[in-house]
């Protein structure tokens, strides 16, 4: 199996999707000859022509509006938003249009072919506007699927799954891992299922739940915890909506403890939804409060980014606190 970094895996998935189906069309700011500011769309214009891979004008509301129409027509648009921080000008098109297209028309029309890709997250000295993790905004919007991969293998399989899913999917890519995360990635065309969490490590004492770049963090924290004799079960949620409640419930019924972590601010973050659901489903089995380890309730800072981030030490402390409760 070839070794790839996450960008290569994403580029490979796009290439395979475009080769397999000529209705797949990739576009966004600078995705054409330049291949995108992170190079996720490298060589696609060369290979598939300017009609199927092109630069758009600099207008996110237009990119997603255009993508909605193209999907409604029956094509399979894969739109790139250059940074997740810049998805908000397209918020109306996503939340009022993409998400509600099928429902409002009674399924006469749908934009199921649509995938929106955007790099998200911190840890790259990006400050307020190159670091945000906006998944919770979209998770509160019925009609959207939201997917976040943790490594190159997952990225390729989930992106192919997202492109071919019959629903609009927001695909948030942990840009901190674009080049930092490498691993073996099958050469062939494969899809990983949406809506299914994955237990990446079994354990007995506590469940650690995360997605995307935070998976690395919980793995590190779990190593620290194991050294202190705490056995951690780790779950990668993978799909934020629709989320796999049963896999999490099953784990927490076993361990009795749960730590959820994400980079986005605490208040209104998706960990809140998970905690609310799990306290309800596992009430009699919980041995300590569900802990959330998240960004602060502030915009994303720069110089003090390290202090801000919900890193492995903070997760580790939360684990110990939970165990000793």
């Amino acid at each position: 199996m070839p070794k790839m970094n996450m960008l290569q895996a994403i580029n490979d998935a796009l290439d395979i999707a475009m080769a397999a189906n000529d209705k797949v069309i990739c576009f966004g700011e600078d995705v054409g000859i330049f291949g995108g500011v992170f190079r996720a769309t490298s060589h696609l214009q060369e290979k598939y022509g300017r009609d199927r891979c092109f630069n758009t004008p600099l207008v996110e509301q237009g990119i997603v509006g255009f993508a909605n129409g193209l999907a409604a027509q029956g094509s399979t648009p894969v739109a790139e938003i250059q940074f997740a921080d810049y998805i908000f000008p397209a918020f109306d098109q996503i939340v009022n249009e993409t998400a509600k297209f099928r429902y409002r028309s009674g399924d006469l029309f749908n934009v199921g072919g649509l995938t929106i890709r955007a790099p998200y997250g911190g840890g790259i000295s990006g400050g307020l506007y190159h670091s945000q993790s906006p998944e919770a905004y979209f998770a509160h919007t019925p009609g959207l699927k939201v997917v976040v991969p943790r490594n190159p293998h997952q990225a390729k399989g989930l992106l192919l799954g997202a492109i071919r899913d019959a629903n609009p999917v927001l695909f948030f890519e942990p840009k901190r891992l674009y080049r930092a995360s490498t691993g073996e990635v099958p050469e062939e065309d494969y899809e990983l299922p949406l809506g299914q969490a994955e237990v990446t490590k079994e354990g007995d004492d506590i469940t650690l739940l995360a997605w995307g770049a935070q998976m690395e963090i919980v793995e590190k924290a779990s190593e620290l915890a194991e050294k202190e004799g705490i056995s951690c079960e780790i779950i990668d949620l993978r799909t934020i909506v629709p989320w796999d409640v049963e896999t999490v419930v099953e784990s927490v019924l076993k361990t009795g403890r749960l730590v959820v972590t994400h980079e986005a601010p605490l208040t209104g973050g998706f960990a809140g939804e998970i905690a609310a659901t799990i306290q309800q489903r596992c009430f009699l089995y919980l041995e300590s409060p569900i802990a959330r380890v998240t960004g602060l309730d502030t915009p994303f800072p720069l110089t003090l980014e390290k202090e801000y981030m919900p890193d492995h030490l903070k997760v580790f402390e939360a684990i110990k606190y939970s165990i000793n409760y």
Partner: protein
Amino acid sequence: MSTTTKAAPIVHTPDFMNGDEFRIPVFKLLKQDGSPYKNAKLPDLDKDKALRIYRAMLFTRVLDERMLAAQRQGRLSFYMQCIGEEASVIGSTAALDDEDMIMAQYREQGALAYRGFDVDEFMNQLFGNEHDYGKGRQMPVHYGSSKLHYMTISSPLATQIPQATGYAYGQKMAGQGHCTITIFGEGAASEGDFHAALNMASVHRVPVIFLCRNNGYAISTPAHEQFSADGIAPRAFGYRMKVIRVDGNDILAVYQATVEARKLAVEHNQPVLIEAMTYRLAAHSSSDDPSGYRSKKEEEAWRDKDPVLRMKLWLQEKGWWSDDDEKREQESLRRDVLEAMKRAEKREPPELDTLVSDVFDEVTPILAGQLDDLKAHIRKYPEAYPKGAKSLNGKDAGGAKHA
């Protein structure tokens, strides 16, 4: 690469332009008495097509009259009339291929009527019953028809405009010679989405027609508080887009302009902006009362430019239509509408399951659970939810669960 596309002339005095340097004329063919202007070359429109157009205009008028009355009687929650703008929406639609896509705003029922949406289909949507294609989810007038290539209406303004650009891009890729028309008000044209749509259409050479119904008002806001320019048309220059301004109450001019626009779009991948100058004769909607923001006199002046009457006079001059025809058609349309309304009112509400279907292609586990809980709850209190209870009749009773 140069940063402008033309070698620009050079000047040494700082003179400012503002668009007053040129005029955008209005294209007209018919006078209000139904006779053509001197020198006007009328489009080739055979009798069948002319009558198809006119019947759609009449139907739209009757529907509007009856449904506003029904709203006033409390039979309907809400309604929006097309009156005054029938020529703009029907004339343009008639110029298209029937399989071209229409993406409209909400005041374009005439276009749908022309395409053949039948009176029961209208009524089912207006009453949100079990036969409404939209499954009773949207407010009245949010029609849609996939078989007639009429995109389901969405309330947020202007969102359909960049979608039309994207849809038409897909049509271009498909290569079957179709285009998309998107219709919207001069108010909606203030939204950012409008600009995104025109710019992208122009850059990517998309076969799309942007038809702005400049009807003078956005609810209470008059056009001169909406923009300072000479209408919407000069915005096309910002995108080097082909543009034409047309008398929106002149069915033949609208038709002809759209025929030409379609050629540019389909044969040359040139998007086009059409500005149809017209007037919203009715209130904005059944919830609005325009007396607070405009004068009767102004309304009267526009009533004198009635587009339906203008077409009728033209048809009569051609000998294709008589006062008798008019009377018979009106009566039959009124009867059709009233009978269809009665049928629609009596139909059942949509099934309870439609509350959670179509959010995704399949009902997710969370939604299935929410539906189960809801059913159990309604079984407990059937009187409180008469519509929901109906759809549970004869089904097994489940226990109450709470989320």
